[in-house]
């Protein structure tokens, strides 16, 4: 079973993403900010990271930049999700190392389609 790390400071958002992904057969773990996500990601390799942008302690950009410095785990794809839809925000996300930038609120089919695409689970 593929394992996804959902990183968001909002408990409701984490639960929403968890429900969507678990219903589709994925295993999900959570982190509440970039620091906790780094601690988890450097101990265990996940297949995909769903990363919020604005979080206390370490934001999504900071997490991805640091995460991508570790060559052994840089291959795992990351979806950045944010309330900010500007071109500048997206450019920052991709520069930090995101494979995809989605704007909240995400619809279940949208999250699942991109998850399957990035994980090679497309039928």
């Amino acid at each position, binding site marked *: 079973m593929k394992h996804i790390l959902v990183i968001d400071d*909002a*408990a409701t958002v984490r639960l929403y993403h968890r429900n969507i992904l678990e219903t589709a057969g994925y295993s999900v773990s959570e982190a509440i900010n970039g620091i906790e996500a780094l601690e988890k990601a450097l101990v265990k390799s996940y297949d995909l990271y769903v990363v919020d942008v604005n979080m206390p302690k370490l*934001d999504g950009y900071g997490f991805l930049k640091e995460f991508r410095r570790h060559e052994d785990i840089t291959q795992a794809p990351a979806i950045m999700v944010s*309330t900010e839809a500007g071109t500048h925000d997206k450019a920052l996300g991709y520069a930090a190392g995101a494979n995809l930038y989605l704007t*909240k609120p995400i619809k279940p089919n949208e999250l699942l389609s991109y998850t399957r695409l990035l994980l090679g689970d497309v039928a």
Partner: protein
Amino acid sequence: MAIVKNQTPHIQCVNHDERIAERDFEGLVEELNSDNPTERRWAVRDLTKMPEASSTLVARLKFEDDASVRAAILNALAHLGDNVAIAGLVSCLRSEDAALRNEAIEVLKEAPEGVEPIINNLLNDADSDVRIFAVNILESLRHNNVEQWLINVIEKDPHVNVCATALDLLSEVGTEHSIPALKQLKIRFVSEPYIGFSVDLALKRIEEGSH
């Protein structure tokens, strides 16, 4: 073979005795522009005791690139807490730098007296991102009016993500008083699955909490 000079790295040390020596405002402002981050940090700490320092610290914040000095300035502004200091912190909410925005939010959460007079303006800002950050500030703001501010947001704000952010917080702090506004929000954003999910969750938590 080339001769390599043994160069001693140029390290500026801050003598503790120098720092505690009496220093006037002008001297500290000059030190705030030092190349040495340690000196700048000490200057910020000493300026925190001077009520006239807010505008100087706000000006420095705009181009300070050392994270520890920046954190010191943000905390100093929260400590000073006057109109200039709070306005300087609020201006960070409009920054393109996500780290600076988030640091400012965390500091403003700890300054309820300074935030209270301006929170309505922030919650009605033309920029939806600033309104979202204003809701984020309410998260830890110990103020009796937090629930009512959040209810006002979900009743009136036209932007789905501003409402969604307020909804996340109402899930934690909402009481029965929020129920009508929550039900109305679900109707207003009927095509957004996340809003429906969050409203149901908030209603469940409120009902469980009332029993």
